[in-house]
């Protein structure tokens, strides 16, 4: 220890001028107000000065303590004495850290005293001293100092040695940058690595450690010879970096290797038959990373289709718009962002094949997908309908060629897109959030290019929260129910009012039955009652022309009242939604009998991605398979025809078999 | 007290240094420059002065002690022996012959006549006097 201190003392003595310089520079912000600078600016100047001086000290000390001393024989002087290399290394590093920290502090103390932390905006009652003792922050500062000194040392050693090893350094640097982009950037940008407050430390620590290891090797093996020192420092440094990158890559692979049993699904899109589902969600092992799994619920086999980083740091690959299924159930399209051309790309899956290999299709001259885009896949998956704020287009699949386009005037955004027939698509639009009006619009587009856009008035202006469910079309696309201050039945082609079914601005919901009848639900204001058997809602049954047939009440909460899919002829799901963390029940209501026939405890219908629409089943009719979620992140598949229940995702789901190589 | 006489060696000569020291001391004793009981320079001092290895000086002194020319007194140094042995006549003759041969060869190389050589000899060794050695007495 004595020897370490002797070496450190000598290093400090050589560079003692840093200390008075720091004090002098630290006093500059105090005198600046005399020149008319505002106190807030003076503080900023003081901070910048302190940090700059610390950085300058790090560069000065780091570049000279080993590299310069090897070149001018100073290291030879030490190594000719009975001084272990550890004492040389330890003494020089100790002096470097002390010099950098002390000069930074000395430059900061004058203005820290002049401007107490309590007087700065946003801090109340703290002192500078306490702020500096904060664990993660001071560790981060310490790591930064080590990093600065280590970088200066490595750089100076490499440059002074002028050996061929520089080429190796350069090559490894490029390789590491690539590997960092490929394996570390996703960890950070997708939020896989846990966040504050230790995150900055985690990112910087491996680099600092690698530099320290490099300098250890440099002193132990290189000794007083600069060439050998450079080679040893390189090997030590790159070994640690390689190890870190390998670990990061392994961690990334592990974090992405999620099977359905580990998924916390927040969006479920299903094919019409109920066999394939596309699940979007997160997993506990990967924090915020948005996984996407395409699962064959009959076999448990699944594909992984999560996003990755493309060129320019933009998220490439499948976006949160998720999947659309063809009405025939034969294909699925996952839409995503094409980073190279800036448009939309589609991964088209042939679900009839044993191994549904995706075809990557770039949509010709398309806009990139956004949260306001809507997609639909034609019944035989021969074309894709894409609607965004400024236009709607039909693209041929699998070539991606644009077949037809219609421009949409500004001020609209798509609600529901649907194919009426193989070559005919229709989309209903609501006013955009910036220009609310009492209007909706319908746009038709055919593959031969015929198109038409027709805005039509509705009864009330929709609020943004109301507008996303403002139009509910029937399966054929010929009638819609609009929820504009009530529930009104309209013609889907021109918006002509056929009948007003409810006149209430409170919780209303409505749905078509497969035989054309309409069910409207209205909630009663909540009065105190037990959790899942609230004061209830009233369901009213209408015929296809809007004539009232019957009404009955169901015991459910009225908050978030929603009428769901028809699980069997005449049987409809009724659910409520108060909070994502409270368990909710879903009721199966027989509208002909006028009563609840089944209560699905703790389950609520699984929602898809909100702008995409579930395709209608082939040839109309109902599907008996439906998907539900509960608060424990289970996704449950219920076949109402057989009563079979299967957990498809979440804890307890089968791990399934991943289809690889796709 | 007169200072000890100067012993000079030339490391460049092919003659071993210890031999040069030995010869020098012998000559000094034989010529009376060093009298019995006189102190010789210490090993350390002579080595430093002449820029030679002390071991070499010690070796020379050791041989001289064994030959009876010097005696070593612990703690005091090295002195000329009380009764230095006289050089055996054969030794004297040999050395003299060697010296004469060197002089003759030198004269031959210079192209000097015998008569001039003898004159040179007489110049440094005047009739009845003592030869000057080009050094100190």
């Amino acid at each position, binding site marked *: 220890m004595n020897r370490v201190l002797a070496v450190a003392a000598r290093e400090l003595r050589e560079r003692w001028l840093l200390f008075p310089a720091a004090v002098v520079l630290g006093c500059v912000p105090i005198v600046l107000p005399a020149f008319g600078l505002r106190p807030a600016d003076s503080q900023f100047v003081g901070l910048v000065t302190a940090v700059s001086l610390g950085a300058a000290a790090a560069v000065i000390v780091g570049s000279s303590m080993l590299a310069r001393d090897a070149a001018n024989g100073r290291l030879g002087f030490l190594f000719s004495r*009975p001084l272990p290399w550890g004492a040389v290394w330890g003494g020089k590093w100790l002096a470097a850290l002390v010099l950098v920290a002390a000069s930074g502090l000395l430059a900061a103390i004058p203005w820290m005293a002049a401007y107490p932390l309590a007087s700065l905006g946003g801090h109340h009652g703290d002192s500078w001293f306490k702020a500096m003792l904060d664990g993660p922050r001071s560790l981060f500062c310490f790591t930064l100092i080590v990093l600065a000194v280590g970088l200066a040392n490595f750089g100076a050693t490499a440059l002074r040695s002028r050996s061929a090893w520089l080429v190796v350094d350069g090559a490894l640097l490029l390789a590491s940058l690539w590997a960092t982009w490929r394996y570390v950037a996703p960890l950070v940008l997708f939020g896989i690595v846990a966040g504050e407050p230790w995150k900055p430390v985690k990112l910087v620590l491996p680099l600092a450690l690698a530099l320290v290891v490099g300098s250890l090797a440099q002193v132990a093996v290189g000794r007083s010879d600069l060439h050998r020192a450079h080679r040893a420092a390189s090997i030590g440094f790159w070994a640690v970096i390689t190890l870190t990158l390998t670990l990061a890559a392994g961690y990334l692979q592990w974090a992405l290797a999620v099977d359905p049993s580990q998924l916390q699904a927040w969006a479920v899109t299903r094919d019409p038959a109920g066999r394939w589902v596309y699940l979007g969600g997160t997993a506990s092992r990967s924090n915020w990373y948005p996984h996407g799994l395409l699962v064959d619920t009959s076999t448990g086999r699944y594909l992984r289709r999560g996003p990755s980083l493309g060129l320019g740091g933009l998220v490439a690959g499948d976006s949160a718009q998720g999947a659309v299924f063809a009405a025939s159930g034969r294909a699925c399209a996952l839409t995503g962002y094409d980073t190279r051309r800036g448009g939309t790309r589609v991964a088209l899956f042939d679900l009839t094949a044993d191994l549904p290999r995706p075809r990557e299709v770039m949509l010709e001259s398309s806009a990139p997908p956004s949260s306001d885009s809507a997609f639909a896949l034609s019944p035989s998956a021969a074309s894709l309908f894409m609607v965004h704020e400024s236009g709607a287009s039909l693209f041929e699949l699998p070539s991606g060629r644009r077949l037809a386009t219609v421009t949409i005037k500004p001020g609209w955004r798509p609600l529901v897109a649907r194919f009426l027939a193989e070559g005919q698509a229709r989309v209903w639009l609501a006013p955009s959030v910036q220009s609310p009006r009492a209007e909706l619009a319908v746009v038709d587009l055919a593959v031969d290019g015929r198109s038409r856009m027709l805005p039509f008035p509705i009864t009330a202006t929709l609020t943004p929260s109301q507008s996303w469910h403002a139009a509910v079309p029937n399966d054929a696309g010929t009638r819609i129910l609009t929820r504009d201050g009530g529930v009104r039945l309209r013609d889907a082609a021109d918006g002509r009012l056929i009948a007003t079914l409810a006149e209430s601005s409170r919780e209303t919901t409505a749905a078509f039955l497969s035989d054309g009848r309409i069910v409207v639900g209205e909630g009663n204001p909540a009065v105190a009652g037990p959790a899942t058997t609230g004061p209830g809602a009233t369901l009213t049954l209408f015929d296809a022309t809007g004539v009232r047939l019957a009404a009955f009440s169901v015991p459910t909460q009225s908050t978030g009242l929603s009428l769901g899919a028809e699980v069997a002829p005449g049987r409809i799901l009724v659910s409520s939604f108060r909070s994502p963390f409270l368990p909710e029940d879903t009721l199966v209501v027989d509208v002909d009998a006028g009563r609840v026939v089944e209560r699905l405890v703790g389950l609520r219908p699984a929602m898809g991605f909100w702008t995409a629409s579930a395709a209608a089943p082939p040839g109309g009719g109902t599907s008996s398979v439906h998907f539900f979620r509960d608060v424990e992140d289970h996704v449950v598949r219920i076949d109402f025809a057989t009563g079979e229940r299967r957990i498809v995702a979440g804890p307890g789901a089968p791990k399934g078999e991943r289809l690889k190589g796709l | 007290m007169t200072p000890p006489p100067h012993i000079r060696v030339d490391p*460049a000569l092919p003659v071993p240094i210890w031999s040069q020291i030995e010869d020098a001391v012998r000559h000094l004793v034989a010529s009376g420059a060093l009298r019995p009981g006189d102190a010789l320079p210490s090993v*350390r001092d002579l080595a430093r002065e002449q820029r030679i290895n002390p071991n070499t000086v010690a070796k020379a002194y050791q041989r001289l002690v064994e030959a009876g020319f010097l005696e070593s007194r612990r703690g005091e140094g090295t002195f000329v022996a009380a009764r230095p042995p006289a050089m055996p006549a054969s030794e004297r003759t040999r050395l003299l012959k060697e010296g004469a041969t060197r002089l003759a060869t030198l004269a031959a190389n210079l192209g000097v006549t015998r008569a001039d050589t003898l004159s040179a000899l007489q110049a440094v060794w005047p009739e009845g006097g003592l030869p000057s050695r080009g050094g100190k007495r």
Partner: protein
Amino acid sequence: MSTRPTPTAAQAGPVLETLTLGIRYGRTRVLDGASLAVPAGCVYALLGRNGSGKSSLVRVLLGQRPAATGSARLFGQDPWTHRTSLMARVGVVPEEPDAPPEMTATQLSAFCARLHARWDRGVVSERLRRFGVPQDRPFGRLSKGQKGAVMLALALGHAPELLLLDDPTLGLDVVARDAVFGEVIGELADRGTTVFVTTHDLRAVEGIADRVAILHEGRLALEGPLEAVKAEWGRPLEEIFATVTTGRPAPTIAVPREVEP
């Protein structure tokens, strides 16, 4: 008056030796299979021109570079792996004075005192006074000769068993050179220190070397006791050196030879 004491600690083997030592810088072979041995109490002179590999050999002996082939030994141990303990027994005077320039001689002596188990600051100070070196002037502002004197004083401050001098007279005038070697000789006489000196200044070592070796183009061209070498060649060391290192035959001059008794 001092008498020469016996060498300290009877050495079972040589103080310094190399066994077919080879040194490489990258692809270049600087030293090729050199074997030499320095017994205790010996003054060993390694001669060679600039670039013959002398300094590389010294660096390997001091444990600052590993050997490529063969080995080097100090006191029977590998200097690369035992450098710290070996340097306590060795005093080093490098080719270029390498002490920190901002420290004074007094501070340097104090610094070294913290590194060695035994250090005599008085002896160091006395030696410097004898050299006439101002002890409170920063090292960087001393003359070349004074710097060399300081390096020598620092090398001898812990009474080492082996003194290693790498080209100690480089750039020094005759007076300074004589002063340096005078100190070395004094140390020799007092303590029987083994001395290993590399140089291309032959006159300085001709008087004091016991054994000599000549390095030429990475190989030992000549090695042996100086006396025997000179007896065999019949010429001064300068001529022997010139002949060996240039391959030029020396002019023949008949010099009468002394017969060894």
